[in-house]
């Protein structure tokens, strides 16, 4: 039953769903946004999420996590998407944790992974430098100086960057891509919170000649490790997109069965029926593509790139269509802030851009397939 959830995974989904519905629903994101909350997420919710073992699902048991796989990460991310929960799980528990596990030294792993799994520390990857995701041209320089490193450059769109205590900074060293563990409070690190359309967290990070000891460099932090950690992140973002698509589609279907115009339920109109049916098929395709990618990440993580590119591309386009149709089919009401569709639309837009939009994923697929 490779593409269907097993019993434990179904239980995980159900418990995550009920926890997030009770503790991190859309209303909470609204509150955080309207109150200009300085952290951008609810601390007690995050602690409770971690206490249930959710924050550490991708962290190995030896490092204090639950040591589950990509499928379980996907299960949680879908529910996060359905509830628009603002939690630093994707940045810290998924990508940063995976990168530390793949490339970090034993000391780095021991220092950070247990705290990440317990939700006590937030770590995040600082990667992008321009408006689009471009892993090929990292410009931020890392220069070696007799037993230490100096980092200089700027990072943008760093998820949860302003609340992270650890930044994993991707840099260009003489021998290629390198990753550095940079404490948020290191001298020369300037973090500016960038309030984004989706009311989730991001930051711009300036590294002004930051001096780091030699052991700050992740020993196995090369291009391959970076891509592998990103691939888990991309699949997780795809899962959040799928959760968003499912949620807005369900709500829109309900509306088609309630709203009357011209003396009829609008769901009786074939023009809308066919659009709903087309969207349904698109979402099912996205679900299957995602299941395939998560399975590949668990079975053969070094060879999962194609499946991940396919999943993020498909979940991205399906969710983009779903949020647009949800607004259109709700008419004027869909445009209003009190209905949640705008919030879903904004989050989907951000997730599209995160770690490569659908176009980037398609280009990557073409490159992987040699054309």
């Amino acid at each position: 039953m490779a593409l269907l959830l097993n019993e434990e995974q179904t239980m995980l989904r159900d418990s995550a769903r009920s926890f997030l519905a009770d503790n991190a629903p859309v209303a909470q994101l609204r509150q955080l946004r309207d109150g200009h909350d300085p952290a951008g997420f609810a601390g007690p919710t995050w602690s409770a999420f971690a206490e249930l073992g959710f924050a550490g699902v991708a962290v190995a048991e030896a490092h204090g996590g639950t040591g589950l796989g990509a499928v379980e990460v996907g299960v949680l991310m879908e529910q996060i998407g359905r509830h628009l929960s603002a939690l630093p799980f994707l940045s810290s528990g998924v990508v940063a944790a995976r990168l530390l596990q793949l490339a970090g030294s034993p000391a780095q792993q021991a220092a950070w992974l247990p705290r990440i799994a317990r939700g006590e520390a937030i770590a995040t990857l600082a990667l992008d430098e321009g408006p689009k995701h471009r892993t090929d041209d990292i410009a931020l320089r890392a220069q070696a100086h007799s037993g230490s490193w100096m980092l200089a450059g700027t990072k943008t769109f760093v998820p949860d960057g302003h609340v992270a205590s650890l930044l994993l900074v991707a840099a260009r060293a003489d021998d290629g891509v390198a990753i550095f563990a940079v404490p948020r409070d290191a001298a020369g690190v300037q973090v500016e919170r960038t309030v984004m359309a989706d009311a989730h967290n991001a930051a711009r990070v300036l590294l002004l000649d930051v001096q780091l000891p030699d052991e700050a460099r992740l020993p196995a932090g090369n291009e391959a490790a970076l891509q592998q950690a990103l691939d888990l992140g991309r699949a997780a973002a795809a899962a959040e997109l799928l959760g968003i698509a499912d949620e807005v589609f369900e709500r829109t279907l309900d509306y088609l069965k309630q709203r009357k115009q011209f003396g009829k339920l609008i769901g009786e109109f074939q023009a809308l029926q066919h659009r709903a049916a087309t969207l349904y098929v698109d979402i099912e395709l996205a679900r299957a593509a995602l299941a395939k990618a998560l399975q590949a990440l668990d079975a053969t993580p070094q060879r999962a790139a194609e499946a991940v590119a396919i999943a993020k591309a498909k979940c991205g386009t399906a969710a983009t269509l779903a949020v647009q149709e949800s607004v259109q089919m709700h008419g004027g009401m869909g445009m209003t802030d009190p209905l949640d569709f705008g919030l879903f639309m904004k989050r989907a837009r951000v997730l599209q851009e995160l770690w490569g939009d659908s176009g980037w994923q398609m280009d990557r697929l073409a490159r992987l397939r040699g054309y």
Partner: protein
Amino acid sequence: MSDTATIEGFRAETRAWLEANCPSEMRQPLRGEEDYCWGGRKAQFQSDAQRLWLQRMGERGWTVPTWPRDYGGGGLSAEEAAALQQEMRSLGCRPALWSFGIWMLGPALLKFGNEEQKREHLPKIARGEIRWCQGYSEPNAGSDLASLATRAEDRGDHYLVNGQKIWTSYADLADWIFCLVRTDSAAKKHTGISFLLFDMATPGVNTRPITLISGKSPFCETFFDDVRVEKHNLVGQPGGGWDVAKYLLTHEREMIGAIGDRSQSQPLGAMAAQSLGRDALGRLDDPMLRARIAEFEVDEAAFRALMQRFGEQARARQAHGAFSSALKYYGAELNKRRQELIMSALGSAGLEWEGAASNDGEAARDWLRSKANSIEGGTSEVQLNVIAKRILELPGA
């Protein structure tokens, strides 16, 4: 022994049997429709290897692995059948038999046929001895299939059939037909229909091939003029034919949907790069086409995953009964996109209609043939109606 050990044992035996029994010619990739083996009384085998392969697979019941042994099947579990399919794929074994009997009639007979009908017809389907065609559409009953008018008059011990069918695939090559007929003209349109089986060699049956835009004639008009059909050839209840027809259609839709999955053939991007060349960075030297192909390949891979997921759901009895409409709709549209992209990738070379260079216009004819995918077995619009009503439960009609 655990289930896993059992299935792995079965897999090993199966592989050994296939290696010993599948002739090497039958492990070459299919070149085109001319390599399909349809069996039947008029079968013309391309080679001894093709005949032998059908005979061996038919004897073992592996042309229909999950059908019961009593009816000529292999009696395999779903897991065993999946293992057989995987092993055939990995060894490159061609399917031994293409058959509407397997894909469409068989499942309907297993569900609605009586014991005598199952014993009579299923083993001949399994062994490829009888080739079937489908008598559904009529000139005035296309998307509105239930308005069909072919009459079967009750004459005591037999029916007398009069009327006309259209788009009967390969009627001119088929031995028997499964046919929808009206047995009660007073009843409401869905309830007066019955499901009949009869021999195409019966006096009064005539076929006329229809030439399509591809220049080929896979479809026929089929005429019935006082055709005598014995009553034991009625499947299900008199007037209960629509239930049989609908059930059979779900299988037809899965079959047509499967054309969206061409995992055996060369990937489109590689094929286009071969045709058009690459730029200095090794990318297909036509950026717009490259983007369209990449977008297509994402959808194609997602569709393949969807087919796999549907198979798993079906085995776990979690699949929605109308999901075949989703597969049919998307698979058909996907194949049309594929054929358009192939034509773009081939450029003017793909436009050649005759001659050896183009294998008599194979690409152009396949492209044109694909336009029927979203019409046959229920149009894309009909599938979207089914999804809207049965899966999404939207109101109206």
